[in-house]
């Protein structure tokens, strides 16, 4: 086991990213602390530390829930892709050694990031309103959630070959866990059964934290400890499953281009539903290749084409479910708007992930370099990428906007008063989505030229398009205290300016430097934007 840990830590010690991640882990709470101290207190006067503590804890819980998954989701998949997992089993190492070693090595990296965060959270103790017990329970909750998150990432990593797939499934499972309490509550209420509190607070770390926080739901340690025990047990179950999985997953399987014949009773044959007939594929290939080779390349996968639609369908289903439940909040359309906000976020992330995935795969396989050795021009190549990505996402984007129109019209109808503020918000909402999507594609493609992992490129693009304007907006609004009408204008202006700047510069860089960057295996790197 120690051999695996030693090797992983040695590899990690050479990565600059690991030190940067610790700095970020400590820097973000510090920035929030400064913002809270300098801006909020000057505006609202002296405030207790509980608000800050809760904000930092919820952020930290969210970060460890998904950060742990990100850490371990490529632990086994990378070994499988490189074919080195089998080599480990040729030695005296057992499955337990491999899993424990990977868990310890990858967990240690995340653990150090968490350790860097805790002193910043502890600063809220100095402001008052937070007890030492709350802080200790919060820290324990963070550690416990990190443990489960790492274990979940590890088990998903054993069952997939690509990190994207492992991370996607692990994130979806984590989301289900986060929302399980609400879903169970809603389902039981549908059958007019009052759900016991323990069921609602059992699954989600966020809900468990709400139970220990005095300022939210009133301290109730009983549910907190039940949740800690439950999540701990789930974590060990994941590790056990990972151990069983890793024994088998390294063996090579024969690649075949035909799925099992469709049989509804056999789940292994379900993917054949996604396979088109060879005649229709060939006909589509002919048409698409005439348009642009990369247009076909981006749109040839039916799964990638269906992915954005899946988010829209899920959102529509969620909204429909919302209508079914008899709740004032839902009836007022608030739930539908909440779903749309989440859908906007997910849609942008999916768009960035899709662009990054295609570019990284093309570059790493060497196919892009070979294509650039043909008379194919960079302009035609980029046209292919852009139109291909928009073919996959254009339809769902239009559907989302229509859906929004319908929901806002409905809200306006049931409230019998078309609020100007609401109309303005809706237009801003839709415009921001369209502009962000237009900027995300070139920005992600440009970032993906230099990165080997698509999620890194998508993450950077997300940071530039979603987080940076958000932070700028909050700072500007906090400092300038504009009136209600100006807030929307500021929001739209910052977002437009940021998207145009990032999208425009990235598109220009792609056109000017794509060939050079892709062929620069031996040349010095050109600084990125």
């Amino acid at each position, binding site marked *: 086991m120690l051999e695996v840990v030693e090797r992983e830590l040695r590899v990690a010690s050479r990565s600059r990213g690991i030190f940067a991640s610790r700095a970020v882990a400590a820097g973000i709470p510090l920035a929030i602390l400064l913002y809270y101290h300098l801006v909020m207190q000057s505006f609202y006067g002296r405030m207790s530390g509980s608000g800050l503590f809760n904000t930092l804890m919820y952020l930290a819980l969210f970060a460890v829930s998904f950060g742990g998954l990100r850490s371990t989701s490529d632990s086994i998949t990378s070994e499988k892709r490189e074919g080195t997992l089998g080599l480990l089993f040729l030695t005296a190492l057992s499955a337990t050694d491999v899993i424990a070693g990977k868990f310890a090595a990858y967990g240690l990296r995340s653990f150090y990031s968490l350790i860097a965060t805790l002193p910043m959270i502890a600063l809220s103790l100095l402001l008052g309103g937070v007890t030492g017990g709350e802080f200790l329970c919060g820290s324990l909750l963070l550690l416990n959630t990190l443990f489960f998150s790492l274990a979940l990432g590890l088990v998903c990593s054993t069952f997939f070959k690509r990190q994207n797939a492992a991370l996607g499934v692990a994130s979806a499972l984590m989301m289900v866990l986060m929302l399980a309490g609400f879903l169970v509550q809603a389902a039981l209420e549908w059958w007019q059964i009052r759900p016991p509190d323990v069921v609602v607070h059992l699954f989600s770390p966020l809900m468990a934290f709400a139970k220990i926080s005095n300022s939210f739901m009133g301290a109730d340690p009983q549910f907190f400890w039940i949740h800690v025990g439950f999540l701990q047990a789930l974590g060990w179950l994941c590790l056990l499953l990972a151990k069983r999985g890793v024994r088998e997953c390294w063996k090579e399987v024969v*690649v075949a*281009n035909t799925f099992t014949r469709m049989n509804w009773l056999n789940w292994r044959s379900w993917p054949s539903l996604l396979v088109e007939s060879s005649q229709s594929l060939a006909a589509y290939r002919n048409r698409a290749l005439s348009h642009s080779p990369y247009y*076909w390349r981006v749109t040839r996968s039916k799964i990638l084409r269906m992915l954005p639609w899946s988010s829209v369908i899920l959102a529509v289903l969620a909204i429909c479910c919302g209508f079914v439940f008899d709740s004032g909040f839902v009836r007022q359309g608030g739930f539908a708007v909440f779903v749309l906000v989440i859908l906007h976020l997910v849609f942008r992330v999916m768009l960035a992930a899709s662009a990054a995935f295609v570019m990284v795969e093309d570059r790493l396989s060497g196919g892009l370099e070979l294509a650039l050795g043909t008379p194919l021009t960079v302009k035609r190549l980029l046209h292919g990428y852009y139109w291909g990505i928009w073919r996959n996402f254009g339809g769902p984007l239009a559907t989302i906007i229509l859906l929004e129109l319908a929901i806002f019209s409905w809200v306006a109808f049931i409230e019998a008063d078309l609020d100007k503020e609401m109309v303005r918000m809706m237009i801003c909402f839709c415009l921001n989505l369209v502009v962000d999507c237009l900027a995300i594609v070139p920005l992600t493609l440009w970032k993906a030229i230099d990165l080997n992992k698509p999620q890194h490129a998508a993450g950077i693009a997300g940071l530039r398009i979603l987080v940076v304007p958000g932070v700028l907006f909050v700072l500007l609004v906090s400092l300038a205290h504009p009136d209600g009408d100006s807030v929307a204008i500021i929001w739209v202006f910052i977002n437009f300016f940021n998207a145009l700047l990032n999208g425009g510069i990235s598109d220009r860089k792609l056109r000017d430097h794509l060939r050079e960057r892709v062929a620069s295996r*031996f040349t010095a790197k050109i600084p990125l934007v």
Partner: protein
Amino acid sequence: MSDQAPPVLTPAVHTVGLTRTYGSMTALSDLNLTVNRGDLFGFIGSNGAGKTTSLRILATFLTPTSGTAKVLGCDVVTQSDEVRHLIGYMPDFFGVYKDMEVTEYLDFFAACYKIPSASRDKTVSDVLELVGLSEKKGALIGALSRGMQQRLGLARVLIHDPQLLLLDEPASGLDPRARIEMMAILQELQRLGKTIIISSHILSELQSLCNRVAIIEKGKLIYAGPVQGVRDQMSEGPVYWVTVAHGTQAQAIEVIKRCDGIKEVEMADGKIKVSLVSSETDPAAISGALVTSGLRLLGFREDEIGLEEVFMRVTRGDTQ
């Protein structure tokens, strides 16, 4: 395939003072090279000698720091689009999309070369037949063996019927059968009139395959020309192996030493190794002297210097 006649009298490749530096490191220094049309030209050098850099400049992936390179009369910097139409470049990596089928992959690159969709099917079938992959048309690339993927790479290179093929280590990692088959395909392509520049580490195969070679070390061209011509360049005379009846070797050595133009005579492995001063010395004089002396001559053959030996002699194993 294209009916366009190549421009007359221009060499396939002509470089003058070609230099490429990466920061302080000089990968290629003052390369002057001419490859004639129809040549099967071997490009030999240690790892990091500058072979791949040269090929990537010719393939328009890299721009030279100084000097010029022309491919079939077109400058690789100022006429790069024209050059891309004329060449087929196979790099030292596969560059395949493993989730594509063989036909899809070739269709994709045919579209990159703007081959009309009406003739794409036939072109793909033709190149697959040429490289012996017709039966794998519908196979996933990920399921092909390494040798087959290499053949697919060659098929991709041939899809637009280029006049010049630049092949970087096309036989690396292949098993003996796949290597021999690959070499046979290359000979067939040469017979069809293609000019081929091939870089490889398997020198024994290049020796039988190539009509001309270039040896490069630390970015500098050491030798370019026919394999046997390297001996003249190194100012070494020919070497002959003489076999005489058992027990008469000492007498034969004395006879040979008395002949004109003899540099050195020595026994090796029961045979007599005779080194001549220059290639102008008539070897028939040696056999004549032995026969005249009444010695029984069992064998007399010229020592054919191998490419591996030439390579070892002219290089010092320095890399950058």
